[in-house]
């Protein structure tokens, strides 16, 4: 069975030969570049060859040798400018915060400020910052921060997908489709609450939802109109190659949902539904994948109703995210893409023996009937030793086999 066939079985709720594995096929199932270098060294491979395709979270693209060693069945394609407007079509040697080498985008040139922080500048604005001693960039500029009225919103530029971006995406999709047997995930985004938080600032946008719903709807309608045009062009070019279209919107915190179920239904769901249902209607072979961190348990029936078919990352450490309950309640409707091993506590604090046991336990819960793709909960962070990563993925390979005799 090929990787592509294995993924297709799983996302159609059928048992394949084994549980398929994702290592780094989207920006929340991957590996931080420092940890990637350590993983390469541990595997006896040359380091510094990884590409820092996500400068925001400092993620390295797993190369095919590493992907195959970790039994990976799926790859992602990238937008031309995945973060902060920096294109990733040309590369140069660079250095990570720990001093190890990496290939970084050619025009990625952060400036060091007087405090020692790294800053990304766009025109006259500082748009992102990696604090000294930190290992991530975070957005510090919010373009809509000054907006108070509909007229202010009307003046903001619309973010249509470009032909260059579509060409870049299609070239990768065609290459992987014709030259590998991996399934392909295409990142669309279509974020509603997260784009709001990014555009307006986190607290400002959440307050806008609560206290100025009419203005919030006006803004969300505008961005969704653009998403719908982008979506049509995106899938028009990519649908023949891809199996999964990835959306994102973090709706949970550690303890609960960020917003009430009612607020989700009133303010966010209509814009999710418009996009997800359109995909299901026009491209039924492409599955709708939603990445949504935190405790999202109480929203899952609404997410399914909106059109979500695959959910990630299944944050086991968050409240109410009990794998047994999730599989029992929603296993018929939802593919769990993640939840294979907890990163916040287990990968960070526990030994290899414990990690293997947890992978086995979770696979036993999630694998019956298909509908499960193994990956850790969110990205492997910089401080995770490579032997732990290998242990987790080898355990997934070992215990993921379906016993066809039964």
């Amino acid at each position, binding site marked *: 069975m090929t990787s592509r066939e294995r993924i297709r079985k799983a996302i159609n709720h059928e048992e394949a030969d084994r549980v398929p594995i994702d290592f780094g096929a989207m920006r929340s199932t991957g590996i931080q570049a420092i940890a990637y270098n350590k993983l390469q060294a541990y595997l006896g491979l040359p380091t510094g060859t990884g590409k820092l395709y996500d400068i925001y979270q400092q993620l390295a693209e797993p190369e095919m040798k590493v992907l195959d060693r970790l039994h990976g069945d799926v790859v992602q394609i990238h937008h031309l400018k995945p973060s902060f407007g920096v294109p990733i079509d040309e590369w140069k040697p660079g250095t990570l915060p720990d001093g190890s080498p990496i290939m970084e985008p050619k025009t990625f040139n952060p400036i060091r400020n007087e405090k020692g922080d790294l800053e990304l500048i766009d025109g006259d604005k500082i748009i992102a910052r990696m604090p*000294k*001693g*930190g290992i991530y960039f975070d957005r*510090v500029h919010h373009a809509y921060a000054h907006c108070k009225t509909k007229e202010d919103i009307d003046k903001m530029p619309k973010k249509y997908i470009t032909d260059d971006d579509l060409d870049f995406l299609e070239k990768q999709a065609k290459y992987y489709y014709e030259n590998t047997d991996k399934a392909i995930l295409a990142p669309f985004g279509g974020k509603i609450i997260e784009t709001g938080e990014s555009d307006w600032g986190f607290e400002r946008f959440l307050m806008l939802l*609560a206290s100025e719903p009419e203005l919030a709807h006006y803004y969300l309608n505008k961005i969704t109109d653009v998403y719908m045009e982008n979506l049509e062009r995106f899938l028009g070019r990519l649908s023949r190659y891809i199996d999964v279209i990835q959306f994102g919107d973090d709706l949970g915190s550690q303890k*609960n*949902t960020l*917003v009430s179920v009612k607020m989700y239904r009133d303010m966010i769901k209509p814009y999710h539904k418009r996009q997800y249902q359109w995909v299901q209607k026009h491209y039924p072979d492409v599955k709708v994948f939603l990445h949504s961190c935190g405790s999202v348990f109480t929203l899952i029936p609404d997410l399914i109703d909106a059109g979500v078919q695959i959910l990630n990352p299944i944050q086991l450490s968050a409240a109410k995210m009990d794998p047994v309950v999730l599989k029992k309640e929603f296993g018929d409707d939802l593919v769990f893409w993640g939840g294979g091993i907890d990163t916040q506590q287990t990968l*960070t604090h526990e030994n290899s023996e414990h990690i293997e046991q947890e992978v086995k336990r979770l696979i036993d819960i999630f694998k019956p009937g298909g509908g499960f793709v193994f990956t850790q909960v969110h990205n492997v962070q910089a*401080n995770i030793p490579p032997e732990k990563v290998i242990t987790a993925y080898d355990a997934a390979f070992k215990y993921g086999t379906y016993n066809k005799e039964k």
Partner: protein
Amino acid sequence: MTDFKPITQALVNGNQDQTLSLVEIALENGTSALDILNKGLIPGMDEVGRLWMSSDIFIPEVLVAARAMNLAGSRIEKELVDTGFKPIGTAIIGTVKGDLHDIGKNLVGMMLKGKGFNVIDLGVDVTKEDYLDATKKHNANFVLCSSLITTTMAYMEDIVQYFNDQAYHDKVKIACGGAPVTEVYTKKIGADIYADDAVTLANMLVDMMKE
């Protein structure tokens, strides 16, 4: 005599304009700023905390209520100082070095202000030296350290060690919080206080001030 219930309710509803205008009316009627705080605003934030804990409201509603509390608090600040008002205690809050995430830290600050604490917010990416300097300068009772990610959490141990090395840990209690932080971890690094959420933490600190 002023009826404080409408002030409390306006705050719980997150209606900042109404909260402020009711506070103005109360002041004009000769109600003391201290009574407005203790009988109107603080009960409002207590109710917000209760509703949040019982999942009757969520972060957006907490934020708009805290915004109303802040505005009303600023309005009566001068009168409070004039009457010799003393906050229940002083807490230094900040997100640790290397980490720029602040929503959790801000929610803790809002709940503490709602309990009548003097909250000194050092912002994000805060060094151990800045925590200690602020603690000394404000003669703080508590130092509250927040982090969102597993990699920046490790700096909390450096902070505790620094307070130990500078012989100041016996004068202040250190609390740790944020998504990856647990009670076990807090104990392991030698910090003093952990709570699962902002409301529980604020209640704990109030109790500790009474001891």
